[in-house]
């Protein structure tokens, strides 16, 4: 245990250890790495929201001198990955599920040539009906997006999470709580799919080494987590795949799932040449993940003096075309919907629905931002109803050291009171 004391080094500001390199421009990111004989890759993104792929004709592209390879899912047939459910292919397999999904990827001598070749790849689609609102996706008769994993991962468009198909929290008895409450507020909230969008878009450089393995430099947030996926797509043991993250230009959660790493490694293996795939910001906007949009119904019961008695929140999370981290995020929404407040009766019900939208990825806040928005606005609505000062209402119900959270965990080193006082004093709240 570390007792509270002042330290020599800790607690005193220092510039970052690579700051001199930053301000003189010598820090190397993936876009600054160059290898002799390096090919440039350009993805072919789907132009359909939901369609069956009838044919991919790359002959015109391959005919161009200097184009080395056009990779499609046929080059890695049994490759599938996913954080909780294995439902995500590297390149679309016989069906595209969102506009911007990668269908093929071209490797050529120069970036301009790769762009030209990518425009010559003809993909024939058979358009299927698409659904975009998670609440519509759960209605009967909605077009089914994942027909292969029915029963195992999905039931219609509902991603099966938790024992009872949805994620629940049952603490105390909300009905009894609402009966005892003087004031009950029920509102609907919804939050928008924000993009993490670090200024550096996804970029990966994969180079075969002389032992038959691969070295992959990539802008990613977890080297070991993604090495496993790269190893499985090129069918090499993990010892043969070396993943390196040089300086990374921001991530905010977008770069901790798989991005362009497997497809670049596949191209490097097929062409046996170093290959660099750099997405432009436009491709990054279309292809990679966003914050999960969520649709809440919050019901809060409280006494006249401001004591919170019962809270019930239902949520439909839109996980986009694939599952990715939707279950982990919805688990946090289901469990921490009551925020830093002591509410004896808490019930929650969170459903996850897949739609033909971009994949929901992790983003700074990881499932805590959305319920915080709903609850904190509802607290202000309650304060207005009771005629109380919003700050007082929060301080009346907040966690206190030594007590237990309504879900049973011990409260240790709770800083919510310190934070509220600090910002109230600094901003002159109430004056």
């Amino acid at each position, binding site marked *: 245990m570390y007792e509270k004391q002042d330290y020599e080094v800790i607690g005193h500001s220092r510039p970052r250890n690579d700051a001199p390199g930053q301000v003189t421009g010598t820090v190397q990111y993936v876009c600054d790495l160059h290898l002799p004989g390096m090919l440039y890759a350009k993805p072919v993104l789907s132009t359909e929201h939901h369609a069956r792929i009838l044919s991919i004709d790359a002959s015109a592209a391959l005919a161009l001198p200097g184009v080395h390879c056009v990779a499609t899912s046929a080059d890695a047939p049994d490759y599938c990955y996913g954080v909780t459910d294995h439902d995500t292919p590297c390149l679309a397999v016989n069906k595209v599920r969102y506009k911007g999904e990668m269908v093929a990827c071209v490797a050529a001598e120069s970036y301009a040539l790769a*762009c030209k070749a990518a425009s010559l790849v003809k993909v024939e689609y058979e358009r299927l009906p698409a659904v975009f609102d998670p609440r519509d996706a759960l209605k009967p008769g909605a077009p089914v997006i994942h027909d292969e994993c029915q029963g195992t991962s999905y039931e219609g468009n509902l991603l099966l999470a938790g024992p009872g198909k949805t994620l629940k929290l049952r603490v105390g008895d909300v009905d009894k709580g609402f009966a005892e409450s003087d004031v009950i507020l029920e509102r609907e909230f919804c939050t928008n799919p924000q993009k993490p969008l670090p200024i550096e878009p996804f970029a990966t450089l994969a180079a075969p080494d002389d032992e038959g393995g691969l070295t992959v430099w990539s802008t990613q947030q977890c080297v070991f987590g993604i090495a496993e996926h790269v190893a499985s797509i090129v069918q090499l043991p993990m010892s043969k795949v070396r993943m390196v993250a040089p300086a990374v230009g921001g991530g905010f959660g977008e770069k901790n799932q798989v991005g362009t790493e497997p497809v670049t490694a596949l191209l490097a293996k097929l062409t046996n040449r170093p290959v660099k795939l750099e997405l432009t910001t436009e491709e990054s906007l279309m292809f990679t993940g966003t914050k999960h949009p969520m649709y809440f119904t919050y019901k809060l019961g409280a006494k006249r003096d401001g004591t919170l008695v019962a809270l019930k929140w239902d949520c439909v999370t839109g996980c986009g075309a694939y599952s990715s981290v939707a279950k982990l995020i919805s688990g946090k929404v289901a469990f921490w919907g009551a925020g830093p407040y002591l509410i004896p009766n808490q019930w929650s019900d969170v459903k996850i629905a897949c739609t033909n939208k971009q994949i929901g990825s992790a983003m700074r806040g990881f499932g805590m931002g959305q319920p915080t928005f709903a609850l904190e606005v509802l607290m202000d609505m309650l304060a207005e109803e009771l005629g109380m000062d919003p700050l007082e209402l929060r301080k009346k119900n907040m966690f206190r050291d030594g007590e237990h959270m309504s879900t049973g965990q011990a409260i240790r080193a709770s800083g919510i009171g310190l934070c509220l006082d600090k910002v109230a004093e600094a901003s002159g709240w109430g004056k």
Partner: protein
Amino acid sequence: MLEAAPGGKILAGGTDILVTLNGNAVPDDLTLVHIGEIAELRRITETETALKIGCLVTDTMLAGSAAVEKYAHALWQAARESAGPQVRNRATVGGNIGTASPAADVVCALEAMDAVAHIVGPGGERDARLGEIITGPKKTSLARGEIITELTVPKGASAFEKIGKRQAMTISIANAAAWVELEGDTIRALRVVIGSAAPTHVRAAEVEAALTGQKVSRAVVEEKARLAVHSISPLTDQRATQWYRTEVVPVMVARAILAACEQGGWNT
């Protein structure tokens, strides 16, 4: 001045055309004629009644010139608020007109100032107002090989208002420019142009008719500005809904007219 280039496009600043080329396949038949080095076209000269602006004048030069700030205030504001510093250092007035985007800020201000463009081409030289040059979104009536060399902007009191998704580097959701000729407190002549609320920039004719000859007051201007709704045909796109543009255009028009009057010496 310029030999017509078959199948070619004119490259001045390049801030619009290169956005289409970057990261996409470059069409084989594209030939770009770069006119960026012709110094005579990159000058602002002042005459008794108007300002002569070369087609290669960049937004930064417009925003930095005292003459433009004094005599063509709308153009000065539009140049200051469009895109970001790096783009303003390269984007030229001629290129802006050539791109003919319905939301263009500088074109909105120029049309309000009743600017006249001097066009040179294989068929000889002619003058034309911007309304005649820009015929639709991304479409102009310039024949092959014709180029705008200079703009003549009459002096006057004017102002420009813009609303976008954020405070900088944003394409306008709605913009309005007003030019006014005051006699004491009454409006003798008025020209109001609204952008990104129709396929091209449009004149708010009803508002102009209603306010000409009126005495300037905040209430009257705001009341008459509501007539601007009849001359626009907004659409819903990723930047704003049709309802919002219809609600916000009268507010922008009123603010532009009042600011123009203020610039023209009317004290509130």
